[in-house]
């Protein structure tokens, strides 16, 4: 499908993210340098000799955040990002698009079957580096991840904030580096409401980061929020406790 080149308007701070006016809404597209076929059935379009892929808010939390007004940092051209919880690569492929051919994405995933698809994807997406690893043990992939400009985390775990902090302390390049976390409040415990979880996460992250306003991802992803901002000196002065808590061992019969 081809669209008029004028239709793709790059966003100001991220030239590889384009917005397109269609019918009653504005769509987001990313400029890609991966190759066909599509990763998860997303639409492709070609304009000005470049390939673009539709960035659907219903499929990707990052896109949903942008549609709902996320003002914080996003991956941009030439940056090196660490993606925790990359799964099959749906959003990771877009992050790779956004950092472009001069950037890279280190995609960490610990489940085998999604990782198999991520690995297959990485073979045709040059900027995507697949890593089979547990985000709870950030040292396990230090061999493959240099200091990064930003971290994107989408791990549905009760102690996700602690995990993210541990990774940030080790891998973020320095003050001013970016952090974007997709918070799944349903995974954080039934004892508190979604709002309470978000506030607690903001408190814990606020020690080391200048946070941007959190964005609620409803109706695209119920109970999810996008939280994040830029790192301050505090993260690198060792003031932040960075040991992720061990999940309590599950006993048989727990449903």
């Amino acid at each position, binding site marked *: 499908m081809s669209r008029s080149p004028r239709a793709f308007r790059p966003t100001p701070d991220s030239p590889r993210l384009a917005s397109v006016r269609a019918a009653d809404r504005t769509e987001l597209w990313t400029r890609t340098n991966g190759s066909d076929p599509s990763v998860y059935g997303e639409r492709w379009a070609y304009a000005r000799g470049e390939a673009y892929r539709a960035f659907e808010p219903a499929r990707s939390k990052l896109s949903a955040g942008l549609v709902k007004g996320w003002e914080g940092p996003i991956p941009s051209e030439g940056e090196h990002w660490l993606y925790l919880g990359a799964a099959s690569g749906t959003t990771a492929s877009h992050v790779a698009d956004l950092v472009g051919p001069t950037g890279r994405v280190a995609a960490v995933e610990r489940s085998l079957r999604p990782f198999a698809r991520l690995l297959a994807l990485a073979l045709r997406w040059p900027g995507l580096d697949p890593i089979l690893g547990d985000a709870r043990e950030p040292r396990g992939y230090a061999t*493959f991840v240099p200091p990064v400009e930003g971290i994107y985390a989408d791990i549905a775990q009760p102690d996700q904030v602690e995990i993210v902090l541990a990774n940030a302390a080790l891998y973020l390049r320095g003050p001013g580096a970016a952090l974007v976390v997709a918070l799944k409040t349903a995974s954080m415990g039934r004892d508190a409401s979604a709002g309470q979880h978000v506030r607690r996460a903001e408190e814990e992250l606020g020690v080391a980061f200048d946070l941007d306003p959190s964005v609620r991802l409803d109706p695209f992803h119920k109970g999810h929020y996008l939280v994040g901002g830029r790192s301050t000196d505090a993260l690198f002065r060792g003031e932040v406790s960075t040991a992720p808590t061990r999940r309590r061992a599950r006993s048989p019969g727990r449903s």
Partner: protein
Amino acid sequence: MVPAVVLADGPRLLVVEAGGPLPPVTCSLGATPPEAARRYALLADGDFPGPLVQAVRALPRESKVVAADPRWVEGLARAAGRPVRTATVAELRAARSRLDRTAGPEDRAFLLAVARRMLETALASPEEVLVALAREEDRLERALGREARAADHFLAVPGTLLETYAPAWEAARRDLERHHAQLLGLLEESARRVAPNLASLVGERVAGRLVAAAGSLPALARMNSSRLQLLGSRRRPSPVRGPRYGVLFRAVRMNDLPVARRGAYARSLAALAVVAARADATTHADVALRLIARRDRRIEELRRRDR
């Protein structure tokens, strides 16, 4: 004092000393990416390349040695004959900042080789093989069902090209059935090996499907019986209609019972299946015969029931 840090940067092992030389002592893990990936995996087993061990031994006695990856600590300490501990975040950051990190193409080739190797090692376990076979069998069964239904209302109009098409299609379908039978054979063998108790109790096919639906045998063992009964059902249980049809509904002796009794049987069978799965996942005891006896007793009981 600032310790010496042993870390890896791509397919190279390095020893970075605070006051030490730049570039730091480097030891290549292998000439080709697969070789480097193989040697990288061995580090966790304590098998370190000779030159690196020499370099660590050669460090001054007062220096502390730290390793980037906690899995290397024990093996390295043993090989080098000196105490080694895990590097702190600060130590690791400091060491990495002194490196000249221009990642070349061999870094990506190494990363992909390590990823492939780790994936293959993990997928080679019998449990993963069972899950893969069960999923494959599920897909194949669905495909066969679709083909059979399509064949049912296909009209091979005589005197047209369709007439020549029909037998070719039928032959293809028979081939597919044979392939399915072969796959079932493999699945049965795999299930008997991985979960013998469960396979004897509900049948190998269902056992495979249950493990696949749970993701792994330990995951299945952690479930309670109501959850196991629901595995594989697409619909939510309702107070009116009861729990819907999960994988368990296709268990081995379900057909011996009238439809009205099958729910009760499924419930009892789920309880027995949980015991079987737990035995298979942990103790590996042989409880199959006892569970089968209970199962059969329950079937008789249900058959005798009047209402």
